[in-house]
């Protein structure tokens, strides 16, 4: 018997026990998630005790499918995505035993929501240029500065924050990573209204916020390395999952054509072309996932985020154009209100006009398309990097503006 077979039996045995002892239809979701964590099925590839069984990540798909088929609650992954999708990997790769024991389980059960604080007004694509300061004061650190585009900050208990701890070092070397209490003193959270009028994101101001040293992740000065783990997980999470044919924005385009399209043949042809581009992306994602599972990942695993962002913008723009004069209206209107992120919110259907506006962020969030093209060019195709004028300068001497 190969180790893959025995791992498979371990996973399916755990699934059988979980689903037999905690019937999805009668168990409170939080209780179910707690049991799922304790059975090692939260992140099946994590170590035993950290919500996993220490098996290959390829078993994640099996767990997802079995739980979905059984009608188990899985929306914690969406509602607490920055914790369960990204923070968890950071804690497992870089956290201490105490930190993992303290944070992973309540993260998975949704008792504690997480957010991520990287971008700043002066540090967007160049996130390593960030200037939020953390200064040591005995067994504590004192934080001052501003973060932006912080999803879920207004609901979060914990935040993953990267700070500048040594301004005399070149920018990549002087950073340190912390978990900060978002409900603590000196943390001010304000909604950041976007072009749709909603506020999915927040601005966060640190004004002498205190963080105990035991909430530091990895070494002082290791912040960039830890941040890269987070960002890699983010880019895989965006545009990395195989979805059903004709789902997402192209599905909305098809609905518009059928319900209110002009019937124009050139438009029909263009819709078919875009449908095909989306299907090509979907098949490429499926191919990437098959190759990754088989242990032969190729360049197809890195193209999804860029292709998805560009196509979403193109398709949503085309959809609104198909609506004719209705495309010049927006049924929801504009109301400045924070997004609530409850389960109904996730299932809410936006108008094509609103999707068109929202899609503009697709090529900015999680790494701009320009940065993604740099990554494809340099890391996948092996092209030379841009000359960097700030690489060896102390961070404090780098021009900013």
């Amino acid at each position: 018997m190969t180790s893959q077979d025995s791992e498979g039996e371990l996973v399916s045995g755990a699934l059988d026990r979980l689903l037999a002892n905690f019937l999805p239809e009668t168990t409170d979701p939080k209780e179910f998630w707690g049991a799922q964590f304790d059975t090692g099925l939260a992140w099946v590839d994590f170590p035993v005790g950290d919500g996993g069984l220490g098996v290959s990540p390829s078993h994640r798909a099996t767990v997802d499918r079995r739980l979905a088929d059984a009608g188990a609650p899985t929306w914690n992954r969406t509602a607490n995505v920055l914790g369960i999708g990204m923070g968890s990997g950071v804690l497992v790769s870089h956290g201490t035993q105490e930190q993992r024991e303290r944070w992973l389980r309540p993260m998975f059960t949704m008792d504690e929501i997480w957010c991520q604080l990287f971008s700043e007004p002066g540090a967007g694509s160049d996130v390593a240029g960030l200037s939020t300061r953390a200064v040591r004061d005995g067994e504590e650190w004192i934080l001052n500065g501003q973060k932006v585009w912080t999803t879920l900050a207004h609901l979060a208990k914990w935040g993953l924050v990267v700070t500048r701890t040594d301004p005399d070092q070149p920018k990549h070397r002087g950073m340190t990573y912390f978990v900060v209490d978002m409900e603590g003193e000196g943390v001010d959270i304000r909604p950041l209204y976007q072009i749709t009028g909603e506020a999915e994101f927040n601005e966060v101001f640190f004004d002498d916020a205190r963080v105990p040293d035991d909430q530091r992740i990895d070494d002082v000065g290791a912040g960039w390395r830890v941040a890269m783990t987070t960002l890699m997980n983010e880019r895989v999470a965006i545009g990395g999952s195989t979805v059903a044919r004709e789902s997402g924005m192209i599905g909305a385009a098809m609905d518009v054509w059928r319900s209110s399209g002009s019937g124009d043949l050139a438009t029909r042809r263009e819709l078919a072309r875009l449908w095909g581009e989306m299907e090509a992306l979907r098949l490429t994602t499926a191919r990437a996932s098959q190759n990754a599972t088989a242990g032969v990942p190729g360049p197809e695993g890195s193209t999804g985020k860029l292709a998805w962002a560009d196509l979403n913008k193109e398709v949503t723009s085309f959809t609104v154009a198909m609506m004719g004069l209705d495309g010049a209206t927006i049924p929801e209107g504009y109301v400045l209100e924070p997004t609530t992120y409850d389960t109904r919110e996730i299932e809410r259907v936006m108008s094509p006009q609103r999707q068109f506006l929202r899609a503009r962020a697709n090529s900015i969030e999680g790494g701009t398309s320009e940065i993604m093209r740099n990554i494809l060019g340099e890391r996948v195709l092996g092209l030379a990097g841009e000359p960097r004028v700030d690489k060896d300068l102390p961070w404090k001497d780098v021009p900013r503006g």
Partner: protein
Amino acid sequence: MVDPVSFIRTDEQVMLADTMREFLASTADLDRVREASLTADACFEDVWQSMAEMGLIGLAIDEQYGGAGFGFEELAVVFEELGAKVTPVPLLSSVMASTAIAFAGTEAQKEALLPAIASGDVIATLAVFENAHDDAASRPGTTATPSDSGWVLTGTKRYVTDAVNAGTFVVSARCGDGVGLFVIECKTAGVTVEAMPSLDATRPLAEVILEAVQVHHEAYLGGAPNPGAIVKALDAGVVAMASEQVGGARACLDASVDYAKTRYQFGRPIGSFQAIKHMCADMLVAVEHARSVAWHAAATIGDPVESEISVPLAKSVCSDAFLKVAGDNIQIHGGIGFTWEHDAHLYFKRAKADSLLLGSVDSYLDRLADAIGI
């Protein structure tokens, strides 16, 4: 909802690709292709002979008719490597003609015709287009009228791939109310082949003029109209060509990336400039998407429902991708990329011609639109 096919090549398919690559590296270099592209009848006969000996020409023809009985995935592997080297061999024509015969022919006709095609002894091609805007559904102007001993065919087929090198034509003709397929030998009285100077000279096109050509009854495939077989034959061509396009696009991307690493301007490799780097990144996305749909089409061509989507999808995505990548390849090479001595034009011409052959991209988009219910 259709689950994606398996995209992972079998060990045998990996080996087949390696064999093809080594074989073409030693026999089909691009200088030879460039020379051949100055002729009106480009064909690497030595490569064709070797491919025949390796059993590659009848790869997807049934074993009982002298082929190897493999699927379109194996054919896709071979075409990708041929495309990467723009190798002038009449395999695409042969695949289309043999598919038409396999779908429309009687048992006796298949036994009589397919073994010689599978062995490479006879080069066959499909002659169905007559006018510049014809597509798979167009009714031919060529007519077949009954005679004492069989049929008489009159008309002009145009844009026939590899006709100048072919011994056998599979010709569509109006036959009463229907459209049928006839097998005509090139030496038959009344048949004239006139080369058409081809944008992509590595895939020579020609007119096949039929002036009261007399054929026997057994030349009429299946003895009955069968327009569906024309679609099947062209679909086979589209799917084979899609992998050829992937190979060509891959070669263009590789050439661009190599050049961007070694060409210095302003004291640094041009690939370090985002203007070039980002172009290469977009080319990579196009190549990877084309690769996915080409393989998906090869794996599903036998599925009557899914192929209505996968075949037109392959035509649209692979044509657009190859054309974009081949054009960008010239741009990244700058002046040298515009010269005859450089390889870039061979791919660019192939890319443009491919997008126009076997029916326009638009005609396939219309078919895709039908299939997805819009």
